[in-house]
């Protein structure tokens, strides 16, 4: 195992020497994670809010299911989608397996329950009187809903950040569905796994430091947006 300081040094030289392979892996990581977070938010936020706001017979079950899906192991999810996307699978004709799109499909499904759960908590945590009050004051249902969304946007942003954090750091889905193809589907996490398999521990750790710096700075960016819009 190389010394930690050596890895830190390598990490910075990788960033500043504009190593093309590293940049390509960073780009794949960030772009697939961004797409997945956007897609998962489009589904997850409404699902979470809908469950939180409405009352229906199986609500408890739905909440339990959502909670359980949060613990979905990435390799199991990867395997399930692999079966669907393989040429032998139901969706094989699309030819998605081992492309960045396959990673996005997997990561979106991974992040959706997490985002939905956070959105659910945000709705539950909001003052229950917001909707009735707005309606009583003469707001239309749409306006009242907008008011509620506005009140809980901090929680919504937290949902998006949590979803993003999950997908940028995972390796199971990216490895299984992407295939770790150089210049194409190699992400930072699969690159680290590859370097480890080659016995290049110091270089793998250097990549890890680069990944951490990038994902932390994106998180800082998202969090500062959250703070700014706090009423």
């Amino acid at each position, binding site marked *: 195992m190389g010394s930690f300081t050596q890895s830190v040094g390598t990490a910075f030289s990788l960033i500043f020497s504009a190593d093309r392979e590293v940049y390509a892996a960073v780009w794949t990581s960030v772009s697939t994670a*961004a797409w997945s977070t956007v897609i998962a938010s489009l589904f997850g936020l409404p699902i979470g809010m809908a469950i939180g706001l409405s009352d229906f017979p199986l609500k408890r079950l739905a909440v339990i299911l959502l909670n359980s899906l949060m613990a979905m192991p990435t390799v199991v999810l990867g395997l399930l989608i692999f079966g669907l996307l393989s*040429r032998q699978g139901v969706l094989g004709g699309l*030819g998605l*397996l081992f492309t960045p799109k396959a990673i996005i499909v997997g990561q979106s499904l991974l992040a959706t329950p997490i985002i939905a759960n956070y959105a659910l908590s945000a709705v539950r945590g909001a003052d229950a009187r917001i909707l009735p009050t707005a309606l009583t004051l003469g707001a239309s249902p749409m306006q009242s809903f907008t008011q509620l969304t506005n009140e809980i946007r901090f929680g919504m942003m937290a949902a998006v950040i949590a979803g993003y954090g999950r997908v940028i750091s995972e390796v199971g889905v990216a490895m299984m569905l992407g295939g770790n193809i150089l210049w194409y589907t190699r992400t930072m996490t699969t690159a680290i796994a590859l370097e*480890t*398999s*080659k016995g290049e521990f110091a270089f793998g750790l250097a990549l890890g430091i680069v990944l951490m710096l990038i994902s932390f700075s994106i998180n800082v*960016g998202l969090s500062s*947006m959250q703070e700014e819009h706090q009423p």
Partner: protein
Amino acid sequence: MKLRTIAIVLLALLACSTALAQDRLRMSTTTSTENSGLLKVLLPPFEKQCSCHVDVISVGTGKALKLGETGDVDVVLVHARKLEDKFVADGYGVNRRDVMYNDFVIIGPASDPAHVKGAKTSAEAFKRIADSKSTFISRGDESGTHQKEKEIWAEAGLTPQGNWYRSAGQGMGEVISMATEQRAYTLSDRGTYNAFRHGKTDLAVVFEGERGLFNPYSVIAVNPKKFPHVKYDLAMKFVDFITGPEGQRIIANYKVEGDPIFFVNK
């Protein structure tokens, strides 16, 4: 305002990522060809010649062939003759060609606690490891190397089991690292071992040179009659390249720290 700017920039960046579509040849191969660094020098000249991209999925031989059987790749580059023959006989692959070879070596601690060095055959070497209950790490992943290991145990008339026999289920590199940490024996292809020999492992070759340890690699195109969507023409171009004069020259000249990794037949 700031939020919207960020959103626009993000979307613009994402739009760029859907890059121009180039012809892509999808190849599954073993970890040894990728980890040894050979593909990095072998593929660029071909990619230039065919103006295409070769997408490499490097896994164990067993899985590499499985990806061919499901039509998820266009061509396979593997090393496990028996599995290859079955792959072709079952109609999944066509035009199997020899590409190159290296050999397997048994590696272990230089102190050689199981006295493998005196063994006459690889089967005897394995028997000595089993008798002394010295730790042995198996790939355990149905790779070509794992197939060869199972053949040797069968030849020795042994079914390895017990605390000393550990099935790792990982690639060659991981297994060499693991064996190094645990002062264990393992079977490795010479290419990966040579790539690790300089600073990554202090294990030594304790048995080598037997005819049975010969390790040939082949390239096989996936059968277009079975899977009409595979890029057969491109796959055959690759087969011709890698078995042709230029490909063979690149393989023969490829060295890691002065050691040749693969050999060609001529």
